[in-house]
């Protein structure tokens, strides 16, 4: 029991640490990336003894210190408990959901085989869906507990948007479940280990391209990023539901934003790009389609797989940053039109086609 607890705690800390570090680095990527896209220099002021580290000192050191040491202003006439609770319930489900995504295969240490997944569930898909459905509360509460018209509008807009796109997200995930026949995320990743026709990695994207597009779009909308960033449309409603937040609570809303990007990327990776799978890498080593085999020690294989997971997640994070600084914001009627009249029917049609094709193949 003791060692089990220790293993579980270490794995949870690894997953949480991975997410928080990713969120921090994404803050830097977003600022420097947007500067790159807009032909600016970006964060470069803060420096230690003249060392600015391409803005890293600014975004990873100076910003957090400043956020933490700022006054935490709570507006007059609000429910102070709810005001404080909002950033917490915003961040918590994202962290826990991310922890359910497997970041590697089994790691064997002596007799013990450790499943590299912090929340080990055979219904991990359902767990993630349940957690993402809780994400709406942070937004609603933030808007409600601010006593600010703009916050309230942002909160209501945000929650209506999130629930609308949750449907498309659910439908795309059902398609994935149907393809791999499992609700276990680790099983879904393992099922992507084979090669199609001997050379093409058997990743989900080749089976479910439509579901991939659905999850990508719905994921960006769920995380309220441009072009779906109406809840925090700064040109109309200041910062939306977190207008009245300052200091660390503001940082928490910001972190949730980045953590959601990471979560969406992790889900896209797991469902459609083989999770921790490396093409042609089996548990013994590389087995290339042209016949060459390279034997590798177990630890190296595991490290390669974890590395592969992180690289893939990061690529999708970068893609979302790219999308944000490329696309203009939608109008609210367009947003709702797209969610209900395009994504929802497409999602249902995709499911039926998937079912029909698999049943036909099965005979």
């Amino acid at each position, binding site marked *: 029991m003791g060692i089990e607890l220790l293993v579980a705690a270490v794995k949870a800390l690894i997953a949480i640490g991975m997410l928080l570090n990713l969120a921090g680095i994404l803050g830097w990527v977003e600022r420097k990336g947007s500067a790159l896209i807009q032909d600016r220099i970006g964060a470069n002021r803060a420096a230690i003894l003249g060392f600015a580290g391409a803005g890293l000192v600014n975004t990873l050191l100076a910003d957090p210190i400043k956020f933490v040491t700022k006054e935490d202003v709570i507006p007059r006439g609000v*429910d102070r408990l*709810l005001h404080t609770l909002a950033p917490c319930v915003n961040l918590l489900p994202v962290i826990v959901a991310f922890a359910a995504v497997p970041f590697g295969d089994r790691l064997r240490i002596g007799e013990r085989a450790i499943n590299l997944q912090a929340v080990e569930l055979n*219904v991990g898909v359902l767990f993630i869906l*349940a957690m993402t*459905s*809780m994400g709406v509360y942070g937004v609603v509460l933030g808007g*409600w507990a601010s006593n600010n018209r703009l916050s309230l509008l942002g909160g*209501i807009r945000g929650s209506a948007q999130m629930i609308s796109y949750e449907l498309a997200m659910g439908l795309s995930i059902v398609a994935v479940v149907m393809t791999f026949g499992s609700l276990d995320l680790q099983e879904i990743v393992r099922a992507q280990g084979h090669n199609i026709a001997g050379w093409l990695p058997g990743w989900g994207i080749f089976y479910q391209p439509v579901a991939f597009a659905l999850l990508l779009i719905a994921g960006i909308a769920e995380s309220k990023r441009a072009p779906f960033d109406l809840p925090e449309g700064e040109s109309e409603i200041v910062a939306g539901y977190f207008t009245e937040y300052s200091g660390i609570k503001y940082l928490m809303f910001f972190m949730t934003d980045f953590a959601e990007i990471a979560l969406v990327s992790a889900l896209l990776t797991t469902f459609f790009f083989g999770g921790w799978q490396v093409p042609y890498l089996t548990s013994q080593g590389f087995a290339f389609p042209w016949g060459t085999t390279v034997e590798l020690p177990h630890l190296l294989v595991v490290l390669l797989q974890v590395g592969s997971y992180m690289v893939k997640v990061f690529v999708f994070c970068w893609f979302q940053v790219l999308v944000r600084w490329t696309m203009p914001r939608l109008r609210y009627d367009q947003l709702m039109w797209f969610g209900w009249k395009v994504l929802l029917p497409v999602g249902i049609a995709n499911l039926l086609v998937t079912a029909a094709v698999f049943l036909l193949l099965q005979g």
Partner: protein
Amino acid sequence: MSPLVFFLLAIPMVLFSLGVVLARSPVRSALSLVVALFLLAAMFFQLDAHMIAALQVIVYAGAIMVLFLFVIMLLNLQQEPVEAARPAQRAIAVAFSVLFVLSVGLAALRGLPALPGPGVEGAVAGAFGSTEALAERLFTRHLFAFEVTSVLLLVAIVGAVVVARRLGK
């Protein structure tokens, strides 16, 4: 489910349920209900009904409670008006509460001997409550109920549209 886990979940659940009734602010009582539903989901999970646990969170905590919050905000309910209940109301309320507690208690006492004791392994068959078992039942034996659900949902859609249109005018 071990008695320890049961009480770890049940006691906060009762407390939050009390919070639903006792909180002055409607938003707070709605949130207490969310927490109580969440704990209920944890209980289902402990009973190996993983699908039901997930549905509990997705549908109740994640969808229906959002609507509750919307209604609270839509009607701009700030604080419950503090208004002394009439003696007659109070008497009726107390009477019905006592009646309710008695009937539930009686049912529980009658039903208890038929159940295996707490913490007994194998109180339910191995695959009982699993997603596959649930799907098997739902899509074969309870086929009709499943199909009728869609009609029920259709009625709900029509009802919602009609009511909202009247409100909008």
